[in-house]
Structure formats: C-alpha cells, structure tokens
C-alpha cells in the first residue's frame, strides 16, 4: 500500500467516524425535559391529564422512524406529562407500541428499540430521583 493510499484510507475512516458521531445525539436530560415542559406550558391541561398524554404520544410517534427523533421521543415519554409515575411510563411505552401496531419492543429495528429503552431509562431515572432521593 502506497503512502497516499494509506492517507486515503485514514481519510475514509475519519469520514465514517464523523458520520457515526453526527448520527448520535447526546443531550442533558433534565434541561431537555424542562425545555419540553416550558414549550408545552401553554397547552391547556398539559401534565394534568393522562388521556391527553396518550393522545399526544399517538400524535408524535406514528412510525418506527419517529423513535429515531430524540426530541419527539423524549417529549412523548417526559415525566411531567406522565405525572412522574412508573406505571404511567410503562403504559406510555405500551401506548407507543400499540400506536405502531406492535406487541413488543423487540419487534422494532435495533436502533429504534435502543432509543426507546434509553428514553424510558432517562424518564424513569428522573421519576426515581423525584420519588426516592428527596
């Protein structure tokens, strides 16, 4: 392999890495949830009605690709809308799956399932901090 070939391979590798990194979105969770809450603050009844939360969730997540949209996913499963209850988070995930016509999260493409698990973890941890760390 010549020198320029070698440099070219490194260039390809760096480009692939950059693409992978740009496909990965990292955000601080708490400010994000606060941001969503203030964004939705003027929606009448927001955070007070579970029926409203299920309706919002169905509007936001209409196909598996929506699970690869971090803003939509975290907005759908945000603890304030689900009144900070683990049971509501679980029901939220079930509602989301049923909106996609799925019985189990394992039927999702791997990246979508991973996002769903991580978003649920983020939401559950916020709820746990509120509940247990007081």
């Amino acid at each position, binding site marked *: 392999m010549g020198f320029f070939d070698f440099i070219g391979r490194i260039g390809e590798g760096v480009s692939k890495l950059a693409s992978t990194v740009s496909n990965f979105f*990292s955000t601080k969770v708490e400010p994000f949830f606060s941001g969503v809450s203030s964004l939705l603050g003027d*929606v009448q009844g927001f955070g007070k009605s579970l*029926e*409203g939360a299920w309706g919002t969730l169905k509007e936001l997540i209409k196909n598996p690709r929506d699970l690869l949209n971090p803003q939509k996913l975290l*907005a759908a499963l945000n603890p304030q809308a689900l009144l900070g209850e*683990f049971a509501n988070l*679980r029901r939220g995930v079930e509602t989301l799956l049923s909106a996609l016509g799925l019985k189990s999260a394992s039927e999702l493409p791997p990246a979508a399932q991973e*996002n769903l698990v991580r978003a649920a973890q983020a939401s559950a941890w916020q709820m*746990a901090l509120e509940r*247990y760390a007081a």
Partner: protein
Amino acid sequence: MSAPPSTEQIEAIKNRMREDPEIQRLAKTLGVTLERFLSDIEQQGESVALHDATTPEEKSRAEEEIHAAAEKGYGAAAERQATLQGRHDRAATAQSARREAEALARAGGVAKKAAPEKLGTGAVVAPEDPRGQQIKAQVTAARLAPRRA
C-alpha cells in the same frame, strides 16, 4: 435533587427501583432484562445518548410538531372530558327529577294512608314539614279540580 447523587445514593435508588413491580413490568415491555434496564440508567438519566436520524428540516419543525401534537392530544382529552361532564350533568338532572317525582309519589301515598277520607276535602299537615307543604299543594289542587260527573 440539586447536587448529583453519590454512588451509594445511586445504588440505593436502583435497589428501590429493582423491587418496584412497575419497573419490572416496564423492562419486560421494553424487551430487556431488569438488570439490563438498571445497569446504566443513571447515565441515561444524566445525559441521554440517542440515535438521531432526523433531517435538518425535521429538526427545525420538531418543536412545532411537538406543540401541535400536545395541543391536539390534550385538546381532544379536554373535549371528551367536557362531553362526559355534560352527560354526567344531564344524568344527574334526570336522576334528581326522578327522585323528586318519587318523593312526591311517596308523600302522596303517605297522605292517602294517613287521612284517606280527607283527600279532596283538605288534609291537615304540619306547615313546617316540606313534605307536608307538597301534600297540602296536592290536596288544594285536588279541591280546585273540577269534579267528575
């Protein structure tokens, strides 16, 4: 919580979560084991790393879409609640009217039983008794009604 939790606090919180049946069900719904769900939960709770396949256009529309979805979701819920409340009010009015009619019928029965011979000629009732007032009104109406031939 303002300060980040210590390692001991994190473990204590995870233990509480581990015992919670709802967390166990949640992990099952997500298709992962409970231990997998709890393993790095504090990291996701601090700074969540998610795959992002949104286009720049979708990103710029996201806030608008989230707001619109919430308005639709909560709007529909409020509308449904108002409809149910309306039904509830109508049902309550009907029930109240039915109860009133039943009370009147019962009161009439009591008056007949107490003084059957006096009906139509003026039954004596206590003026402070509201049921008595109703009976009195009925009796007066009966007196004023034209007699059948």
